[in-house]
């Protein structure tokens, strides 16, 4: 079985890992329910979601900010038998669960599945309401970390997380700096009808799948220099960006469907939505993907046109972009957008350099 994670663990750790795993396997097998067993983390694609991306906690958050942590926890405990409403990452999680069902049908003994982990720095007492809410929607989330206020970054690393979604941009930035693919998820302005049979993920190119090296040229030297540069270096692959590994993990799972002749019916579809234009700067992107052995199902070159309307047609469960300008455009037209705080794009807004405020302590 191929692994989704690098294997650099010593043998002594392996055997205690095996013990932990076998004990859990025995436990789940002994349950009389149809509940699917959570996959072995080493082989799974781990997606960590925060409580505020999974559920809508806007009202509760207000209490926390205005009245403090004690009142907030007391409120959550008082309402713990009332399930929370879905949050922005909820449709994405349901789509992941659907892919898992399809994978289990085709490969009943495989551990190569999505593993959804709730990663929250909420207090454990709030956790009861979160567990009750997960039960209400029957989500397959069996693993969680409720850190009671501490940073989740260490736990993200301990779980070998492939993707972390949160509403807190500081935590997301910390995760990216630690080499973990992460994004800040925004609730769209209006609801869209999303597929319940296919997981659809859209990615921006520069500073998301690829590094921000070309983005830097645009910002500092303008479009003409950018076009010349990209044509000149067409055959030199771009460096990788923070979400490249997540696309890779999706590709591995897609190939499992292809090898069972399910290409036309594959429950995962990926999209590249880039401001680059096909004619001038697009070739380098496609050649880079090819050199990495990665496929993307649809590549859409906008040549600078706004992304919002196109995304409305695509209806992805999540769209990753490094520039807030595109995130806002996507949100306004009903797309669930996730900001990747990486690269030179963070210092600019609509092409203008932002005055950096003094860093918060």
């Amino acid at each position, binding site marked *: 079985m191929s692994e989704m994670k690098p294997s650099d663990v010593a043998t002594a750790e392996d055997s205690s*890992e095996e013990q*932990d*795993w076998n004990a859990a396997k025995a*436990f789940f097998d002994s349950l009389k329910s149809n509940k699917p067993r959570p996959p072995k983390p080493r082989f799974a694609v781990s997606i960590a979601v925060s409580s505020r991306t999974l559920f809508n906690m806007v009202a509760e958050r207000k209490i926390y900010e205005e009245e403090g942590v004690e009142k907030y926890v007391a409120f959550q405990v008082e309402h713990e038998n009332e399930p929370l409403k879905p949050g922005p990452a909820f449709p994405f999680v349901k789509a992941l669960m659907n892919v898992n069902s399809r994978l289990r049908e085709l490969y009943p003994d495989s551990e190569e599945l999505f593993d959804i982990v709730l990663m929250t720095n909420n*207090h454990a007492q709030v*956790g009861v309401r979160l567990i009750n809410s997960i*039960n209400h929607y029957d989500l397959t989330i*069996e693993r969680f970390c409720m850190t009671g206020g501490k940073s989740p970054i260490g*736990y993200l690393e*301990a779980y070998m997380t492939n993707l972390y979604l949160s509403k807190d941009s500081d935590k997301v930035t910390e995760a990216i700096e630690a080499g973990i693919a992460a994004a800040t998820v925004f609730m769209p302005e209006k609801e869209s009808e999303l597929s319940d049979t296919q997981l659809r993920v859209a990615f921006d190119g520069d500073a998301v799948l690829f590094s921000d090296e070309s983005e830097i040229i645009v910002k500092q030297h303008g479009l003409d220099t950018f076009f010349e540069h990209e044509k000149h270096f067409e055959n030199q692959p771009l460096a990788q960006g923070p979400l490249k590994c997540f696309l890779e993990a999706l590709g591995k799972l897609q190939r499992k469907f292809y090898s069972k002749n399910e290409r036309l019916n594959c429950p995962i579809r990926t999209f590249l939505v880039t401001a680059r234009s096909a004619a001038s700067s697009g070739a380098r992107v496609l050649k880079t993907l090819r050199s990495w052995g990665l496929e993307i199902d649809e590549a859409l070159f906008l040549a600078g046109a706004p992304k919002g309307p196109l995304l409305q047609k695509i209806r992805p469960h999540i769209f990753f972009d490094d520039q807030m300008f595109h995130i806002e455009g996507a949100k306004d037209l009903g797309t669930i957008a996730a900001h990747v705080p990486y690269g030179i794009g963070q210092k600019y807004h609509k092409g203008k350099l932002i005055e950096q405020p003094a860093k918060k302590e």
Partner: protein
Amino acid sequence: MVSTVQNTDVKQKDSDHAVVVAVASRAVFEPGGGDGVYAEGVAFPLLQALQKVNERLLEENSAESLLFDIVLITTDSQQQSSQLISSTKHYGLEVSRFCFSTEEDFIESLLKNNVQLFLSTDRNEVSQTSQKGVLSALLDEYTASCPSEQLRVLLCGDTVIRPDTNPTPASRQAAQSFSAQLGKMRQRFGMSDSPLSITLMTSCGGRDSCGGALQTLRSLGISADEAYCLAGAPQGPILSVLRPHFLLSDGFSGLED
């Protein structure tokens, strides 16, 4: 021959209400200090954390009687009693008394002193003590790197019971009553900035196991701060981030029922 010596530098605790914690002297002190004083052992940050809890409890209420009563116990004749006393005073440790015992009678000493928790780096000592119904926990080299500003206790909800440590009903009871005391102490502080943090971890079961354990703890008066549900994920990496001073598992398997 067991002998108990009071530490005259430290105010004695109210024996009706204090929580007696005995720490094996070899965990606290190691050879090589110089000047007739031992060097700091792995349990140092733990002792400092216990002291911090007492300090903060007294800040909240200067008449507080629910405090940790720390006893230093020798379990063999390797360390010198006079040097243990002088080292304790040298470092200003809040040890109320010293129990000088040997391998044969240290458990008797624990029972006589009404010890509610025994901590040691020796696996055999911990195992023997558990079997006699005294709650005990193993300290290891990781304990040395734990914080000294906050006592972090980990309650393991459903660890697979090791064949050599079958929890007796007595030890289960001891675990629950100690944890209930901890729960009471925890209530003296607010949500944030507490010198005591109680963490629940379940390793095999899914979310309902952990959820059930949280509810059971609540019924015992224990409000856990942090909760981790592993459902078969490896414990090692999580524990190294969690950094608890010690784990209690004896009384908690089957908590989720």
